[in-house]
């Protein structure tokens, strides 16, 4: 079981890298945002961000955006496309278990998400003296939880929507308002209070809040709501994804 999984993961990784659009949005676009706003605002500590700089706040927030890209766009469009094209049908006629097929897809997309975050951290550190006061382990755990929740959401979209095209449209319709209203591109602090009240209903807001909080050293206990929301999202979406999974 391990050998086919590794082989499949390796090939999926190569396939993903051969698709330049996906690589751009996960790896290059967040970096471009970092440099754009970094060059405008720098990373001086500001009272507005409770003594942190713009880059310190943006790195965890952009990380949330990458997670959303991976789950809502890359994963859902990829899965729906593989089904629509009959790629899953052919795989089904082999001894390969669906769980292995799905986990290798997830592994690759997760690795890409990690790469996107790593690039942000490295660039932030080198060019803007990025500050980090949290525990790396906590942030990694929150990152994992957030990614899994959004991947599960992506599987739900892929399961419910008939084609790659509709998955793309619906994914975008969810993605764009979400990244602008959740604080993952524009800081929550700069949004009007009405928008912030609404933003609480967006799952991505909770990812942003959780990652930003743990980044500056908050305890888990301060983020019970976020953890519960993301766990519920993960469990609910996994159940729905299992129910709606189709080979063709």
């Amino acid at each position, binding site marked *: 079981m391990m*050998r086919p999984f590794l082989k*499949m993961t390796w*090939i999926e990784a*190569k396939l993903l890298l051969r698709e330049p659009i996906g690589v751009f949005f996960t790896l290059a676009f967040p970096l471009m945002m970092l440099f754009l706003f970094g060059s405008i605002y720098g990373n001086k500590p500001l009272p507005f961000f409770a003594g942190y700089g713009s880059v310190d706040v943006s790195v965890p927030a952009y990380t949330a955006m990458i997670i959303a890209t991976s789950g809502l766009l890359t994963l859902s469009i990829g899965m729906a496309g593989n089904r629509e094209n009959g790629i899953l*049908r*052919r795989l089904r006629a082999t001894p390969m278990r669906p769980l292995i097929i799905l986990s290798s897809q997830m592994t690759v997309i997760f690795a890409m998400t990690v790469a996107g975050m790593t690039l942000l951290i490295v660039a932030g550190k080198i060019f803007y003296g990025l500050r980090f006061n949290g525990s790396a382990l906590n942030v990694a755990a929150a990152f994992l939880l957030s990614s899994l929740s959004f991947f599960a959401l992506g599987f739900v979209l892929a399961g419910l929507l008939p084609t790659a095209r509709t998955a793309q449209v619906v994914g975008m319709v969810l993605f764009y308002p979400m990244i602008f209203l959740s604080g993952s591109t524009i800081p929550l602090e700069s949004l009007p209070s009405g928008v912030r009240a609404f933003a609480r209903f967006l799952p991505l807001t909770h990812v942003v809040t959780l990652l930003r909080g743990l980044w500056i050293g908050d305890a888990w206990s301060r983020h019970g709501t976020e953890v519960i929301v993301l766990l519920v999202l993960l469990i609910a979406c996994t159940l729905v994804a299992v129910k709606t999974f189709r080979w063709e």
Partner: protein
Amino acid sequence: MNPIIQVEKLTKAYGAMIAVDDVSFAVQSGEIFGMVGPNGAGKTTTIECLEGLRRPDQGRVHVLGLDPVSQERLLRPQLGVQLQQANLPERIKVWEALDLYASFYSRPLDWRNLIEQLGLAEKRNTAFRKLSGGQKQRLFIALALLNDPQVVFLDELTTGLDPQARHASWDLVRSIRDRGKTVFLTTHFMEEAERLCDRVAIMDQGRIVALDTPANLIRSLKGENRVQFSVDVDLDVSSLSKLPHAGRLERHGDIFVVHGRATDHQDQAALVGEVVNFLTLHGVRFSELRTEQANLEDVFLALTGRQIRV
């Protein structure tokens, strides 16, 4: 001996459309079993029930003594499958696909030999989307044979293949059979069914309307040997039909068609001899002599009609 494939009263419907209607048959070990039939006859539905990709509505299906749906895990590793419609990721390379699919099985064949035999070796570094239709088909045939399966299902084996690749695939199929494996294939080429298959089932509107060896099927359609020729002069037609092996006579302008008597088709040589003798004896100059033997296509058309169905 237990049959390798056993189908009893298989029925499968899509909504109100009954695609396979109470079908029973068995395939023996080491056989090349062919299924032919008009578009929409239910061939793919039948084969996909055998592959465990579709769940029968009624009836029982066994492959290698196993139920393809409930015992899928035991069965899958022993099956080779080429689907009528399937796909691979656009950007996967030929060798990557083979390497990946080989990793799914515990004792795969060396895929390098396979693509060599299928004439795909030069394309090993080509992306799937850059292959021609026939090259894709060859790759799918290679994927179906990778695990050296006990039973191979080939749905429209040679559709889209050029004559060379078609013959290469036939050789491959025969070599599989010669190693004691069983092959179940569907085709729209009657010549392929006739030359390649040990037995052929003719399916029409969800039912099997005939099942036998190609020779027996043809024999069952009596007296369809024909000798055809054209002459410039007028010929006393009536005396031709007095030949011992001749039957009905037809004339279209200066083309004559002598039908064989309704007996078995071994007598074709005798009929040709008599006709040629008759013509030389009477000093008739003839041209465009052609003989036509009844073939599977005639049987097919006789049983399923000539009308195109929707």
